[in-house]
């Protein structure tokens, strides 16, 4: 009974929403970090294998990083909406 009333209070005061939003933002940052880390790693490897192609590899790496950041920012915006709305 006490737990239920605590839960109801937390849900009504938007505390749960804020905590959920903070968690979501953290997870989005982890996801972006892992994704861009993998891209950076494989880009460095391929530059090491073929230094002449480093210009091409660099532009492809930046494009892929921007796309992944787009997805991460999506999650951040939803988290912000969860706090504000």
């Amino acid at each position, binding site marked *: 009974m006490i737990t239920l009333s605590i839960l109801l209070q937390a849900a009504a005061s938007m505390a749960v929403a804020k905590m959920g939003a903070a968690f979501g933002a953290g997870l989005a940052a982890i996801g972006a970090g892992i994704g861009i880390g993998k891209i950076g790693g494989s880009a460095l490897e391929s530059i090491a294998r073929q230094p002449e192609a480093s210009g091409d590899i660099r532009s492809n790496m930046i494009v892929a990083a921007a796309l992944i950041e787009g997805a991460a920012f*999506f999650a*951040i915006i939803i988290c912000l909406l969860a706090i504000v709305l």
Partner: protein
Amino acid sequence: MKNIHRFLLIFFFIASAVPAFASDEHDQHAHHDTHKKEKFEPGNFIMDHIADAYDWHILSYKDKHISVPLPVIVISEQSGFHMFMSSKFHHGHDAYKGFYIAQEGEFRGKVVEKINGHEVRPFDISMTKNVVALLISMIILLWVFISVAKAYTKRKGQAPKGMQSLMEPLILFVRDEIAKPAIGEKKYEKYMPFLLTIFFFIWLNNLMGLVPLIPGGANVTGNITITMVLALFTFIITTVNGNKNYWVHIFNTPGVPWWLKFPVPLMPLVELMGVFTKPFVLMVRLFANITAGHMIVLAFVSLIFIFGQISPMLGYGTSVISVLFVIFMDMLELLVALIQAYVFTLLSALYFGMATEEHH
């Protein structure tokens, strides 16, 4: 109220890439001069800088405010068409002919009027800060590119000179690295004007949003309606130019087993959702990147004042680290300005290429 304005503008200057230690001490000093200690609200501070406004605030010095009032054009259900300068609001304090700027609630910061006791938004086509910034960047773009185009006709066959030589590598970059690989040698020319326009428009507006002095400092590409219009253009051009191959790929994707298309058309539904989500993601990506960058800079600056409220020495110490971080973030934002313009243009070109691809 006036103290907050003073603080806002001094933060505005600190948030630029110039280390402003002198003005830092000035505003701490001013903080002590006032006898009312107004609580610093970081949330409102950040949102006020990112959102649109009815006047262009330039400077606040002690008790003098310098801001450029902009026209407010509203059409009310009750009283019809009104056009007046936003100076009539006296920085949000007074009402004028029934219109006033709501200080809180869902219409915070926007012009509202009270009809039957409810706060209601009239049809608002004011020239706000973003509209004026758009017009200024439009004038800059037109001026630069019309002069480059005239230079090409006047100096036919000669080496490029001046603004031409600055723009030529950029234009060739868009043509050779973005348009030709994505759309193909035969069809890319039709889309070049649009691709060039969005590339330079997004890049210029991103850069202008980073400069805190007028005419920069308006968060244009961080306004979701502006990015929505850009993505809408991409969507319309893709849909209108989609050839038979494109629509077959969406509704009858080759290589997919028949039971995914009939009786329950799963694959066509997924592909159709893709048609709408791709421009939507374009819009959100640009908006989120630019707004997030501005928010981070503003958050670092607000950190100074949050700590400054605890103790002035803590504020001084935080300001050193904060300003260094702000400089670093601003450098990163310069890079992001170019990358976001590049990615928007590249993805638009890819969508055009997919829409006009021939069967192979």
